[in-house]
């Protein structure tokens, strides 16, 4: 199944300052009447559905029909003694016609334009009202305004579970929280993941995640039902990286604080088997082939230091040689017929190697970052023959993700924007899919799922060519 990706849509970042005069000007439809109050039916996307709301524009600020918007958002309205009370998301908002004060949970907030009564309908400043209810407002690059009653806030990163859902992670000072989010509606539920969990590693079949903790234990959480994570390994060795097998049945991991050992965990029976223990430290970026026989990883060598401890400290008798400390790609293939089977070093070059992926167990692709920082970063591949060949070298590559047999690259654009390219590793054909704002910090892909981007801490999902906010 190929990825659902839409062509060249532009994300323009407009500072949609909620509650200030700039909000509204861009999206209110033009009204031609000459009366003092011009009421316009304007299109908005509320909770994912396009609706028309009655609006008034005053002093460049959009006022919206309180009743229309509240009904669409799902806010409950109550009126008594000229004061209207709206309730949503546990917030209570009080307002009064003619007053420039919005009471939010008892605290007063100043409005730019007073609440207005026109033809028996109450109008309130759109941005301020939406914010007061704890809802979210977002204008995309095409001028569409998305209003959502309840979106997850402050999302740090996401990963797609399947075509409809993603896991969103919030980080804070004391710990973390992971949510399962429906992309189309923004609905979410908290996953029961331990506060000291490492990042969640999703099984290829999308039904469960694995993580390790400060004790080295491995836990698995079933995403198909509501429940707690189950400890599947009580082994206390440090496990810097976990990798699921292609059949989602076992978990491979690097072991030790220096990631020296490659091992395999069978979660069903809590059994650990060593795959490779060659005393080579600082393995990372582990990938396992579909047949579970070929292991691809990088090895980073620390620099060599010469220091004479007998000399006075003040002499700073230290020298460092960082030659040969660039990461190199290694491959180890399990083969009991080979005596003293060893890992093979595929690369020797002095470039940095990031976003490494062994697509088919034979060749390995990665972004090559030159030591010369003015040079472009390119997508290259290296085979078992150790020959390095270019896959994409047109534009400076910032990020590379592999999904469904294709590479998706976030690259430099023209001037202030960035591009997303799809690259076919078989042919090297590159196709530009998107133009993105420079405020986009990363792309998130998965086979079958739409492309998502993170922009200013907000998750945006490509829905039929429009960028739908899936977090705020």
């Amino acid at each position, binding site marked *: 199944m190929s990825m659902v990706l839409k062509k060249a849509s532009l994300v323009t970042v407009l500072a949609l300052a909620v509650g200030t005069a700039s909000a509204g000007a861009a999206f209110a439809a033009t009204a031609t009447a000459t009366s003092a109050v011009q009421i316009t039916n304007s299109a908005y996307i509320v909770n994912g559905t396009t609706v028309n709301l009655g609006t008034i524009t005053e002093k460049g600020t959009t006022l919206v029909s309180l009743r229309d918007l509240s009904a669409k958002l799902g806010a409950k309205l109550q009126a008594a003694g000229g004061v209207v009370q709206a309730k949503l998301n546990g917030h209570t908002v009080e307002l009064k016609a003619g007053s420039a004060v919005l009471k939010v949970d008892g605290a007063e907030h100043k409005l730019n334009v007073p609440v207005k009564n026109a033809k028996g309908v109450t109008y309130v400043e759109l941005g301020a009202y939406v914010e007061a209810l704890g809802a979210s407002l977002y204008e995309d690059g095409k001028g569409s305004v998305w209003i959502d009653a309840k979106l997850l806030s402050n999302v*740090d990163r996401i990963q797609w579970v399947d075509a409809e859902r993603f896991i969103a992670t919030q*980080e804070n000072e004391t710990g973390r929280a992971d949510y399962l989010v429906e992309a189309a509606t923004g609905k979410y539920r908290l996953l029961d993941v331990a506060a000291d969990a490492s990042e969640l590693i999703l099984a290829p079949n999308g039904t469960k995640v694995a993580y390790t903790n400060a004790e080295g234990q491995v836990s698995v959480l079933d995403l198909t039902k509501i429940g707690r994570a189950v400890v599947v390994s009580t082994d206390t060795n440090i496990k810097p990286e976990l990798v699921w097998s292609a059949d989602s049945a076992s978990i491979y991991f690097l072991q030790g604080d220096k990631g020296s050992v490659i091992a395999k965990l069978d979660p069903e029976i809590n059994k650990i088997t060593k795959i490779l223990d060659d005393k080579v430290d600082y393995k990372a970026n582990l990938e396992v082939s579909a047949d579970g026989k070929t292991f691809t990883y990088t090895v980073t060598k*620390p620099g060599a230091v010469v220091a004479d401890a007998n000399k006075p400290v003040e002499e700073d008798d230290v*020298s460092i040689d960082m030659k040969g400390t660039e990461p190199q790609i290694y491959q180890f293939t399990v083969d009991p017929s080979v005596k003293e089977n060893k890992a093979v070093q595929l690369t020797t070059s002095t470039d940095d190697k990031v976003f490494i992926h062994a697509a088919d167990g034979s060749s390995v692709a990665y972004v090559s970052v030159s030591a010369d920082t003015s040079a472009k*970063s390119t997508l290259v591949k290296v085979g078992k023959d150790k020959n390095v060949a270019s896959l994409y070298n047109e534009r400076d590559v910032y*990020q590379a993700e592999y999904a469904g047999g294709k590479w998706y690259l976030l690259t430099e654009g023209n001037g202030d924007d960035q591009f997303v390219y799809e690259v076919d590793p078989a042919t090297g054909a590159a196709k530009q899919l998107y133009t993105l704002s420079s405020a986009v910090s990363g792309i998130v892909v998965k086979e079958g799922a739409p492309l998502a981007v993170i922009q200013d801490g907000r998750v945006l999902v490509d829905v039929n060519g429009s960028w739908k906010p899936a977090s705020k």
Partner: protein
Amino acid sequence: MKWFKSLSVAALAIALVSTSVSVAGAASDLKGKIVINGSSALLPLTLQAANEFKKLHPKVKISASAAGSITGPQSVRKGIADIGAVDWDASQDVPGFKKFDGQVAHKVAIIPFAAVVNKNVKVDDLTTKQLQDIFSGKVTNWKDVGGEDADIIVVNRAFGSGTRVNFQMKALQGTEFISKGSNYKEVKSSGDMKTAVETTPNAIGYIDLVYVTSNMKALKINKIAPTEANVVNGTYKVWGYGYYMTKGKPDGATKAFIEYIQSAKFQNGSLKKLKFIPISALK
């Protein structure tokens, strides 16, 4: 993935002005070269952070090495490293080492230490006074501290070790070590300490809590067991911060890397996974 929000906010602001050129641009525009040297205890943490950081900022080149804590601030002073990893605050005087003037200390992790003995030793608990007496050579037989009649073998880390500085400051409250004798042994690394304590009957030494194995015994100090929980709840005192030292205030890629290793994402994720304690645990 988390990219630095401050940069994104800047990008948001400039996007309003259509004629503006790239001022902040993508976070991935960050370029530079960072050389890190010093503490071997902190090296796994540094390399893990470097591996993650490069996916956010591919144009930043990070190389790291380790040869003991003191070489960290020395390398920074000499100008051959941007970051000196050290197991104590090298901008202050500590037992054995004068402060490094002009260097700024950045906390990156909490490292607990344990007094450890060979498995044949019957003692489970020592007071600060007893530890001081043993490591200074005043008490030389286990029977004087509640154990069997056997000579105590003191295993010490060589001068320049961050673990040694911390153990001297926190467990011995600054008292001096013995430095010679037939029952005194000096080792050069945590690995050598582990081997020496595991294989030498009647030995006592000290090591990072993370390196305590089932082949040795970690002692309670003043009746408090060396556990992460006891460090966090404030009852176990033998721990130190791991620091990154820089020459003055850092900027550019070095600043961004230090911010990354101090970020909630790294502190609560990979740092815990590597069995360090987040700096926020003791705020």
